[in-house]
């Protein structure tokens, strides 16, 4: 029987099928961070259990960490305690850990691929919904809660029910200034934030096949914003070239054997998905969000939709609540929306290619008056690479702040946040009410688009900068 990519990875990890329709699934890779793990380690301690495979576990602090003056420690006592708790737990349970001052420290979903910890055909979990990022390697990767974190630490397995499958096939040609972030925003608006519920999405088609690994990660990262359990892309030569030589990737004879196996990880001809959608992105302008749900996406050249677009009374009420919260009106030109802050960072868009794209727009220009713009690299290694290329200079000369790596203003658990009523052009993944700070207003977009917003002081079409 022909299988999908998801079927193949699932089948390779069944420890035991259970009579109730669930299966015990083996977990190859477990990423751990400070926010969703303390209660799990405490659970192990209380029941006298150990971490089954420390060698398949990797920990790093990212959510709570300061992005300036880190060498002086963490000022906030609660954040400090949470990071210290992680440091204590990794020592007690023997889990590998990148400390705050090491170059390898960074956002967990940037660190995993960067180290070659994330590999094709593996199952990858983390107590974080954006674990879907790792699906870009043809891994089955998904976010879990803290109880499941404890379950994986203790048993290296999870009890799961198989998901349904969805194919998102992307055709066409990417226009100038249009990126994988624009593709995923468009796809989310197409299927909706609950469109993927109960499904694992496979992204495929000629456009996806041409994307770099980093661009693919941005797409899989936001599968969760479409409600999906996971997003996957079949591994290919681009994947193998990215992985080769990474510290935790296979070496020597193992490498050849691994690649031979990884080449089998693609959907067979004739395999059926439960749902299929197609999108042609030819002539698609850059995309931005206007509301407080990641599905509220529009072309940068468009106007904020009016309530004429509402499907029903509840949707109309939701749109009105969004206008009110966002301080915008239906029908308003999107490019007229002025911003106070710009955030270039997050597990969606803080890799080296993202920083290069933003720097290309920033170069020789200056951040608009009254706009504060942050660039937060995804890891110490990304930061170092950017500095070697002189990107930090381009940013600082243009008036951007060059920060230390972490999750930062994507979720505003550290000191980087919006004040009530402030508006932000952000390369992150969620525009929920209060996400970047209580009363803060978020517009999601690509790194180049965020840089264009920083320069002009309002939401802007980056294509105007690259004519």
């Amino acid at each position, binding site marked *: 029987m022909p299988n999908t990519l998801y079927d193949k990875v699932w089948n390779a990890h069944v420890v035991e099928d259970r009579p109730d329709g669930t299966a015990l699934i083996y977990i190859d890779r477990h990423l751990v961070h400070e926010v969703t793990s303390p209660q799990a380690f405490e659970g192990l301690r209380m029941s006298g259990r150990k971490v089954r495979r420390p060698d398949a576990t990797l920990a790093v602090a990212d959510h709570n960490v300061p992005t300036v003056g880190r060498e002086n420690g963490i000022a906030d006592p609660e954040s400090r305690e949470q990071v210290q708790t992680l440091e204590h737990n990794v020592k007690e349970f023997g889990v590998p850990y990148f400390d705050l001052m090491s170059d390898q420290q960074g956002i967990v979903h940037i660190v995993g691929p960067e180290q070659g910890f994330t590999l094709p055909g593996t199952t990858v979990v983390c107590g974080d919904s954006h674990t879907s990022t790792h699906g870009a390697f043809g891994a089955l990767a998904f976010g879990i809660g803290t109880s*499941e974190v404890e379950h994986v630490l203790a048993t290296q397995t999870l009890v799961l029910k198989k998901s349904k499958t969805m194919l998102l096939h992307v055709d066409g040609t990417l226009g100038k200034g249009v990126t994988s972030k624009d593709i995923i925003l468009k796809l989310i608006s197409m299927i909706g934030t609950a469109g993927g519920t109960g499904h694992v999405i496979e992204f495929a088609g000629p456009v996806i096949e041409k994307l770099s690994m980093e661009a693919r990660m941005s797409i899989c990262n936001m599968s969760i914003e479409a409600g999906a359990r996971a997003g996957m892309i079949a591994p290919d030569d681009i994947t193998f070239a990215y992985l080769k030589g990474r510290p935790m990737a296979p070496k020597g004879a193992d490498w050849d054997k691994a690649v031979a196996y990884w080449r089998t990880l693609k959907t067979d001809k004739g395999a059926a998905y439960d749902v299929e959608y197609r999108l042609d992105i030819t002539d698609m302008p850059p995309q931005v969000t206007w509301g407080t749900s990641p599905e509220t996406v529009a072309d940068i050249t468009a106007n904020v939709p009016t309530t004429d677009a509402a499907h029903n009374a509840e949707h109309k009420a939701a749109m009105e609540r969004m206008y009110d919260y966002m301080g915008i009106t239906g029908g308003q030109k999107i490019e007229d929306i002025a911003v106070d802050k710009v955030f270039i960072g997050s597990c969606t868009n803080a890799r080296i290619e993202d920083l290069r794209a933003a720097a290309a727009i920033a170069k020789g220009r200056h951040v608009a008056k009254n706009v504060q713009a942050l660039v937060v690299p995804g890891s110490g290694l990304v930061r170092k690479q950017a500095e070697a290329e002189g990107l930090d200079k381009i940013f600082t000369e243009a008036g951007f702040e060059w920060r230390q790596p972490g999750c930062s203003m994507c979720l505003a658990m550290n000191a980087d946040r919006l004040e009530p009523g402030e508006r932000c052009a952000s390369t992150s993944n969620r525009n929920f009410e209060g996400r970047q700070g209580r009363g803060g207003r978020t517009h999601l977009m690509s790194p180049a688009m965020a840089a264009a917003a920083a320069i002009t002081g309002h939401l802007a079409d980056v294509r105007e900068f690259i004519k």
Partner: protein
Amino acid sequence: MDKFTTLTAPAAPLMMENVDTDLIIPKQFLKTIKRTGLGKNLFNDLRYTQDGQEIGNFVLNKPAYRKAGILLAGQNFGCGSSREHAPWSLLDFGIRCVIAPSFADIFYGNCFKNGILPLTLPMAAIEQLAAVADTTPVTVDLKNQTVKAGNLSFTFDIEPFRKTVLLEGLDDIGQTLQKTKAIDGFEAKQSTTQPWLYQEGK
């Protein structure tokens, strides 16, 4: 984990769609290293002003719902972040059942780890429950899969394995550890077919 069998309690209508876990428990409360004590900050930004005063017209601040044990909500409840702090905060407040037309996957799974029943009913049924909620408590019977309030009565579906977990209050990890031999066997085999997955730190 406490078992869930039947529950009779006031049901608070929060008739919004796409209630995300950031809204259920905002990020500043995720700095805790405990599971308990989050109930006072459940729906913090809807429930309190910036300076900590209660917002009178928010449903959980109304006298009829201050001791709500059930929440009525719109579709795609619990979307967004995987934070288990969301079910922990509901539980700490005293809510053991959320009734909505649909739930986001991770939140849905997290509820069952904490003895909370995420119960699916059509929106029309939820609206009928909401209409009488201020005077009529709701009774949820998991074993018989019914929801009743006054003259209203509905049945609901739930996957059998999920139902068992709640009815028996099972310790998942203890159960899985009984399968240690099967897990050992899986690893022995995988370490020969994919040895590169067993070489970190060497």
